[in-house]
């Protein structure tokens, strides 16, 4: 299987070649090595997952019977037209929303039945989000924006700045740490958002149209960064409607009318 091939097969000197990249060894779940001896536990396992929205008498299915397995280190893109259920899938995967049917195992743990408090805890610690609109706090510095990801997860205040600075270095904009997001270009902002998403060392990175607000050249830089993250072993799910963006992933799944079909690899 090709999922974590890059990570496993990479010679040590290859790792040396990426010194600025974030170190994933510290993450309890992201590193694939611990699964090498056993049957690997998938990071994401959706089985018969459904999500319905009810408005009055009418029930609108947004996701229908979705099955999806994503292993550690995989880079999967989800493509589909608008209104196809992409965002619902992302919300369910990100524990922002809860499914109405089926099961969702995250790192082998059933999370679809968790209480709101537990879902919030899993969301904060195990999932990194990258949004199309960046969602940076405009009145806080870049460093504070990145440190915000550690605010609720019990990281001691004394460690946050250093870790945030490391994360910024790893995405190549350490020199912008003291800037306000409004002083940055779109590409730089998205890199800050990516630094924020990875600073908590999540098991899963969810990116929702991360290049939707960027021009093609900066898109390329950001996607290059995502490639580097994948190379370092991070599990990534990217939602996009752009086939060219989707093509950079290891695997692409297609969603249409709430139904998922295993697409062709790019």
């Amino acid at each position, binding site marked *: 299987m090709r999922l974590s091939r890059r990570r496993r097969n990479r010679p040590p000197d290859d790792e040396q070649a990426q010194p600025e990249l974030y170190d994933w060894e510290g993450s309890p779940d992201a590193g694939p090595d611990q699964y090498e001896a056993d049957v690997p536990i998938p990071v994401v396992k959706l089985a018969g997952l459904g999500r319905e929205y009810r408005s009055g008498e009418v029930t609108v299915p947004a996701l229908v019977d979705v099955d999806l397995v994503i292993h550690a280190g995989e880079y999967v893109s989800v493509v589909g037209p608008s209104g196809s259920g992409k965002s619902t899938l992302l919300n369910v995967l990100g524990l922002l929303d809860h499914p109405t049917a089926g099961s969702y195992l995250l790192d082998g743990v059933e999370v679809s039945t968790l209480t709101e408090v537990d879902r919030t*805890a899993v969301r904060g610690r195990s999932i990194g989000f990258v949004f199309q609109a960046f969602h940076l706090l405009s009145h806080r510095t870049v460093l504070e924006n990145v440190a915000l990801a550690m605010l609720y997860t019990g990281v001691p205040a004394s460690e946050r700045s250093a870790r945030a600075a490391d994360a910024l270095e790893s995405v190549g904009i350490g020199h912008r740490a003291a800037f306000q997001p409004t002083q940055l270009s779109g590409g730089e902002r998205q890199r800050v958002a990516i630094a924020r998403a990875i600073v908590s060392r999540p098991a899963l990175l969810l990116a929702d149209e991360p290049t939707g607000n960027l021009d093609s050249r900066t898109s390329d830089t950001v996607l290059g960064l995502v490639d580097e993250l994948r190379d370092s072993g991070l599990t990534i799910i990217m939602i996009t409607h752009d086939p060219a963006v989707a093509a950079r992933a290891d695997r692409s799944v297609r969603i249409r009318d709430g139904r998922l079909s295993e697409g062709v690899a790019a």
Partner: protein
Amino acid sequence: MTPTRLSLRDLLSEAVAGLAARPGRTALTVLGTVLGVSALVATVGIAQTAGNRIVGAFDQLEATSVVVSNEQPGFGASQIRVAFPADVEDRLGRLNGVQASGALGEVDIGDARVSAVKLDDPRGQNDFDIDVYAVTPGVLEAVKGTLRTGRWFDAGHDARADTVAVLGPGAAAALTIVRVDQQPVVFIGEQPFVVMGILADVDRQTKLLDAVIIPDGTARAAFGYRSATTVQVDVALGAADLIAGQAAVALRPNDPEQVRVSKPPSPGSLRNQVEVDVNFLFIILGGVSLLVGAIGIANVTLVSVLERIGEIGLRRAMGGRSRHIAAQFLVESTAMGVLGGIVGATIGVLAIVAVAAVRQWTPVLAPWIPVGAPLLGGLTGLLAGVYPAVRAASLEPVDALRSGT
């Protein structure tokens, strides 16, 4: 998995950062609370200052006056219940806190009239119906009296029962006596009294102003006067309560309850009364402006919640629980209230000082007011923040992330 948490320190620093992000708006929002709190502080402080001012004016006279009476209270002719001893001044003078004391009482002269010149005047324009008072020598000081001319009795006049008199200014005018150097004489009935002096004024027992005043001993000898009816005591400032308790025992050790002691109203109750009068309207005004301030904070916090929907969604995605979101907005609104309370208390205190300076008063303010004002402001902010915080906390993260930017 252990629930996510937000330490108090992080909560405070996030709230401060949230407020500092929009300093102009924060300042304007705080303004309402500033107005309300400063109005309240200034109102209470000016009332206290004015109350203290009034008490201060009373201090000169009222607060240092203790009066003991042995008259039976009631309508009509008053009756003496028990006699005062003859040595009132000795007994009271030994009490610590008594500055001066003296006994006085009206002398019963029957139908006798007072005249300056003995004439058989059928038209009766020469003699007058003037009260005669018997006093002990200490009375002049005890009533804070001053003499216009001549001199006052001493213990010798009293002991010897000399037939001398001092006239109140009203009596002197009626009797057309203005000088005493020629030793004028007034007649009480048929009995002549040499006028020693004429009073200018008395601060207490103003009935003396229109009376002919003779020594206690003289009254006993000449008119069968038995006992004074009133003992006037001038006490040191602050000793009124103490002396009031001791005077009755000193004067009537066997049956102190037989005499009535009047003491000045305690300064505390007087001040309270003044404050209640002055405060009521202004406290209502201050309360209304504080309410307006609270509504202002509630409004702006609510707008802020709507504006920061994206931030709320982001925080939820980062592991913030709904209670963390609520706490952040509550702390922000409370902090605005506390800030308004501090600034308002400052402005209020300055206003009190300014008013006092203009009127040349001593500014007075209970210490708990400047301390309590920020608490009041904080409470206002806290209450104002409840609804916006609940709104913020009830936002679904999905909706928040979708609609916010």
